């Protein structure tokens, strides 16, 4: 490639709070339009904002996870503009004194680690959601006033892969930090990417283009690559880039012009007079800092070092907070970690994919999953039986009930097993002969005969041991 790519990313992330940033109305997704609103969210006359403490706590956690310097004096400002999705005619944000500044996160692309700077992190409120149908616009104010943090990276990102890795990293930090549910497709995490190109060695910046409304990490990658190709093409044609906002069109896999940027809008920012500056007390700050949730990286390290999982298993388990939480819940019910990991990765994840539902605990309670794995590890049922039980557990039944109902008890009693072993041996003289003559397959056959005789209840490992023992006597 002939140009150096300069990318900065802005992330808007809805905070996981019960109520809104400045009102007591509930935060919700998917509720009936305009049912989660009160007079404050609708900007009725005389209303005043009251700051959501939990939102501040989550913002502090986000700052800590992104290594930002925290401004302990919380201040807000007004951003003034008229639009139908902005009930008050201004948005309360932190223009002049963002809560976080000067942070960084580390990303990894193709095995190489890179540090991306975080310019600022600030709190603000979301706008209402608009739906355009022909020439009619519907407004749902449920979203109005939802707490947000906006995170702005330094222009340190140099490729589509790095952009995707950055967004993936932010998602992971925000999700594991319990700050947001980071659903890009539902808009609880939105990212805008600013891209410009410049010749290598050039000090200044080229004209930048903003790509908005990217709804998945994959699309971040594709959109950035498409835009780099487009801008390269424009420069090679000897034309210039127009400062503009574009969106990514999935069908054509190209970026499409939304609007040109003509002059900067004057938002007439000024300090919000209805929220006095608030000092975060040492006590509050210490409490938040000492209870920081574990990041995916920290959980992964715990899995490897404390639970003895492989790097591969630990990586998969920490690819999403839902899976990691589910794993932790099962293990905390008493299931052995390694078996739990194997089962989650091989069985549960494939079912989740089929059902397209990752709310694992909704279809199998952690306790049930743990009970199943304990039955296996204690040798009460075989692995094969366990899979049979698992299939039924998805219907909500407990593994103990299923085992009892199906009579799926594995016999591990030596005396009991020995009876079967002796009976099989007495009926299969040829196999004994074969075994003596070094035909290993004969042992497998004999184990199979015992299984058949026991209607699948014999513990296969013990059966095999007993057979070898008995055969050596003959």
């Amino acid at each position, binding site marked *: 490639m002939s140009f150096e790519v300069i990318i900065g990313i802005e992330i808007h992330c809805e905070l996981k709070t019960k109520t809104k940033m400045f009102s007591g109305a509930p935060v919700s997704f998917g509720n009936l339009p305009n049912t989660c609103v009160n007079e404050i969210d609708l900007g009725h006359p005389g209303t005043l904002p009251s700051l959501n403490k939990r939102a501040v706590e989550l913002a502090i956690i986000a700052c800590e996870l992104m290594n930002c310097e925290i401004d302990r004096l919380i201040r807000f400002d007004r951003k003034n503009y008229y639009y139908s999705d902005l009930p008050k005619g201004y948005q309360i944000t932190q223009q002049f004194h963002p809560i976080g500044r000067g942070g960084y996160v580390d990303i990894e692309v193709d095995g190489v680690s890179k540090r991306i700077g975080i310019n600022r992190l600030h709190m603000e409120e979301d706008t209402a959601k608009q739906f355009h149908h022909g020439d009619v616009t519907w407004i749902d104010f449920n979203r109005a006033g939802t707490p947000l943090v906006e995170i702005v990276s330094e222009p340190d990102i140099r490729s589509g892969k790095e952009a995707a890795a950055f967004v993936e990293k932010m998602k992971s930090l925000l999700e594991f930090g319990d700050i947001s549910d980071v659903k890009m497709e539902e808009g609880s995490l939105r990212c805008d990417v600013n891209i410009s190109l410049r010749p290598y060695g050039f000090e200044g910046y080229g004209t930048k283009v903003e790509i908005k409304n990217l709804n998945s990490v994959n699309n971040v990658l594709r959109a950035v690559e498409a835009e780099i190709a487009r801008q390269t093409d424009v420069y090679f044609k000897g034309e210039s880039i127009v400062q503009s906002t574009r969106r990514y069109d999935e069908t054509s896999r190209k970026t499409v012009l939304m609007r040109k940027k003509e002059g900067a809008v004057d938002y007439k920012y*000024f300090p919000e007079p209805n929220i006095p500056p608030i000092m975060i007390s040492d006590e509050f700050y210490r409490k938040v800092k000492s209870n920081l949730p574990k990041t995916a990286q920290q959980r992964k390290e715990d899995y490897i070092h404390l639970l003895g999982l492989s790097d591969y298993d630990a990586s998969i388990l920490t690819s999403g907070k839902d899976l990691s939480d589910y794993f932790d819940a099962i293990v905390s019910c008493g299931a052995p970690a390694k078996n739990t990991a194997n089962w989650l990765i091989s069985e549960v994840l494939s079912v989740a994919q089929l059902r397209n539902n990752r709310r694992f605990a909704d279809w199998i309670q952690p306790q049930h999953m743990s009970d199943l794995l304990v039955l296996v590890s204690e040798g009460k049922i075989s692995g094969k039986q366990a899979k049979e039980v698992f299939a039924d557990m998805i219907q909500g039944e407990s593994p103990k009930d299923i085992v009892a109902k199906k009579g799926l008890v594995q016999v591990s009693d030596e005396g009991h097993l020995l009876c079967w072993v002796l009976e099989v041996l007495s009926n299969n003289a040829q196999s004994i002969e074969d075994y003596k003559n070094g035909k290993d397959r004969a042992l497998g056959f004999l184990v199979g005969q015992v299984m058949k005789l026991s209607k699948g209840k014999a513990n296969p490992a013990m059966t095999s041991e007993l057979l070898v023992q008995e055969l050596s006597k003959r």
Partner: protein
Amino acid sequence: MFANRKIENIEMEVMDAVNQARKQQPLLNAMVSFTEVDEAIEYAKSSSGKMAGLPIILKDNVLTKGVRTTGSVQILDNYIGTYDATITTKLKEAGAVIIGKSALDGLGMGGTGTNCHTGFVHNPYDLTRMAGGSSVGSAVLVASGAVAFAIGSDTGDSVRKPASFVGIVGVKPTYGRISRYGIIPYASSLDHVGYFTRGVEDAALSLEVLAGRDDKDMTSSFREVENYLANLNGDLTGKTIGIMGNVIDAIRSKEVLVLFNDLVEKCKAAGAIIKVIHMDPVRLKTCLPVYYIIANSEATANHSNLDGVRFGMQERGDSLEELMTNSRTKGFSFLLRKRFIIGSYSLADENQDLLLRKAQKVRRLLVEDFKVALADIDVLIAPASSDVAPLLTDTSADQLSARYLIAENHMVLGNFSGYPSMTIPMGKINGLPIGINLTAKPFEEQVLFDIALGMEHLTGCKNMMAEVML
């Protein structure tokens, strides 16, 4: 008067108030709407609240659920309150009976009572005169005898100035003492809830009802509310009273000075220590422009919610932008639009350093001066206006004279600083009342009430009422 008086016949007291307000309406034009009272009367009968059965009036910028609340602007002419302001709730809980909503200069902007959406409001002492503003209707209805208590709001001097012109008590407590939740704002950093009574004892009791922390107003104070009435003590012995020398120097009316000096002499005789305090005269002249810039800047943003989209009057348009422009153009008077433009201009990126930010800096300096002025004294006093109420036809005020800049605008220092400040009547000139203004240190409302009570004893101006010629 209602402090230390149990209202025996609530129905009669309330209906008397309603009837008076109705009868006076053609002359005073002080009411915007009357409210249903039956339910509140029933509630009051079994209430042991501090205002049980007391008929009261709210300025029409106080939100009342289910009752029209217009802010005295066209764009809210059809607006029905969707919730109760915190003070509305507190007053109801105290057993007060809200009989109606009173006129104001639109959105609280104006000090004449001539910029109301419902027309001019007249002074009950002389119908050809103004009664000040912006809380004009409330002031007039307390002075006319219709009610003994009414709510106002004070951003520049909107309670304390009209109180002077109609001879009643007007109180603006410390910023944060009374919740602002549910008051249609003017300028958030200057807005205070205030109120009118006809005596200092009533004023002391009323603050007990209204004050207190409200989680819905983050600027409201956590300080405990005091027993202002029980602790009230009008003994002036040893009290230090500072006279604002700059204001006295700027007043041209001999009669006003005679009344004022007479009261000062009486205070001295009653044991008070009198000092004359001078503040930086150049800085004092900036009160008005500083006020204008800050108030209009905040107001512009505060009223951006009135866009005709979600509530209030809507004027159609071919686009969203046109709908908003049309609604706001038709929905606000020329004066209000002018103020929004001044505010918007002061907020513009290229002007903000020179206008809003500079005004905020000067505000801080003025507050510093004011703090120093109050440092060694209990209260700072000055006439609440340089003369009696002007004629409704009077537009001659020379807005750049010291008389105007200092004598008419010093009370805004109470809004800049948030310090508690009140006006009580000090006498009459040719039958027209005029008041004296007192300001104390933050949250020293008790000191303020104590000295005001001492002065009320000396002036004898208690429970003054106008004879409205019907």
